[in-house]
């Protein structure tokens, strides 16, 4: 049986320690810097660039923070003791070069080396977003990132309703909503952001009220207008991280596509009809665009809208929720977004099919030698002229 002192001494002979200079050069060369202290210590200051993996969660979370075991990992705690034990654990987990910072954060700070205060959520937000904080892929940093995110929704209808509500609930800090319509009785079978009380009211107002009552952290930026070639630059001007396209017409969809390429903003695309929905992500530079998939819109008689052909009320709930999911993944930078893949959902058969989408090198907007480089007359383009 050994005492704590004896155990610590023994561990320190087995692991590699580095002083501040040594640790700094390892980090400069690409080592992962891991703070193994407790949450309250982390909240009072940290070494810039560190990721927080409390020692109690080290075994379960280190792979997330440092997936490559061949990359050196510099660990620190307050004085260099907990990080010594942590380094031993990492070598047992197969990490090739775990290094403990001798003297820890205390010496680092005393020697006048750079530190920073992490942003934290504060108690109320920690409670509101607790189920996100428990997910390692989101956590406090991810939640802060969501609160800083700006997502623009085109349409506050069938797709925009569930998408906006879930994005608001998730704590996306700024939601832009573009919609010129007022709430109509025929909308209420599926457009859950609106209600019987808001009949006749602009959808942007109705959605804004609902979102603000769901989550006061969210700033809603309403655009009570239809997206056009004339207003698109003004609407995009504030800067958006992701666009969620839930428009109900082809001219808007082609306009959103072209604008997103010229502004380098990923678009989460969803469309619905009767029992079927399509959803994919168009990320400029990383995959195909809407025009690569559909170079031309169908003649108007071949593509009836939901107003003409109907839609099962819950279908936009499924597709709009997938759009919200993809938008959150893009905002957080996690997972595999639906780039270059289109999900086709058939509610009647209860099946998803996945199709591969590829960039078209001859695409007039995102191809190698684009022929369309400024906004066109999208209504005319979609009216069947040229067919």
């Amino acid at each position, binding site marked *: 049986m050994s005492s704590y002192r004896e155990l610590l001494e023994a561990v320190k002979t087995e692991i590699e320690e580095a002083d501040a200079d040594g640790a700094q050069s390892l980090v400069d060369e690409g080592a992962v810097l891991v703070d193994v202290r407790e949450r309250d210590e982390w909240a009072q200051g940290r070494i810039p660039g560190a990721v927080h993996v409390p020692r109690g969660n080290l075994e379960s979370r280190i792979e997330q923070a440092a997936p490559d075991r061949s990359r050196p990992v510099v660990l620190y705690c307050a004085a260099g003791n907990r990080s010594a034990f942590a380094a031993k654990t990492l070598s047992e987990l197969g990490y090739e070069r775990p290094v403990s910072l001798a003297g820890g954060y205390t010496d680092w700070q005393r020697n006048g080396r750079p530190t920073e205060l992490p942003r934290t959520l504060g108690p109320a937000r920690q409670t509101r977003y607790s189920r996100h904080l428990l997910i390692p892929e989101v956590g406090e940093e991810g939640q802060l990132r969501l609160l800083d995110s700006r997502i623009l929704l085109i*349409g506050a209808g069938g*797709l925009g309703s569930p998408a906006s509500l879930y994005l608001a609930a998730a704590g996306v800090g700024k939601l832009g909503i573009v919609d010129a319509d007022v709430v109509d009785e025929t909308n209420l079978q599926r457009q859950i952001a609106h209600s019987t009380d808001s009949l006749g009211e602009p959808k942007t107002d109705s959605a804004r009220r609902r979102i603000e009552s769901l989550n006061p952290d969210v700033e809603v930026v309403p655009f009570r207008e239809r997206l056009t070639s004339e207003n698109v630059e003004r609407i995009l001007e504030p800067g958006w991280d992701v666009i969620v396209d839930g428009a109900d017409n082809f001219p808007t969809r082609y306009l959103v596509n072209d604008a997103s390429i010229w502004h380098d903003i990923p678009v989460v695309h969803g469309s619905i009809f009767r029992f079927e929905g399509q959803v994919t992500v168009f990320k400029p530079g990383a995959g195909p665009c809407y025009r690569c998939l559909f170079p031309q819109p169908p003649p108007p008689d*071949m593509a009836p809208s939901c107003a003409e052909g109907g839609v099962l009320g819950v279908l936009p709930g499924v597709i709009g929720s997938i759009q919200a999911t993809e938008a959150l993944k893009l905002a957080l930078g996690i997972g595999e977004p639906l780039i270059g893949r289109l999900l086709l959902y058939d509610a009647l058969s209860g099946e998803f099919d996945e*199709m591969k989408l590829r960039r078209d090198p001859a695409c007039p907007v995102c191809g190698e030698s684009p022929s369309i480089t400024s906004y066109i007359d999208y209504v005319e383009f979609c009216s069947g002229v040229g067919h």
Partner: protein
Amino acid sequence: MSRVRIPPTLRSETAGEREVEANGRTVRELLDDLMGRFPALRGQLLENEELAPFVNVYVEGEDVRTRDGLDTPVDDGSQIILLPAMAGG
């Protein structure tokens, strides 16, 4: 024999059928067989005897435009999906 999924926007041309069987060793032969039985589909799928630019055909999840277009070979039992653009939101 292959199974062809008919999108909702084209079902009025196939008497409401959601999936129909068709024969052909290439996409062209297969569509010819299909349009022989459902003539109204022709105007919805082809333009100047080529695939219309607003329709995508997938063979086993791959867009035939990225392969050999209408000459893309079709194996017996392949799943074919006709995917038109839909605007609804």
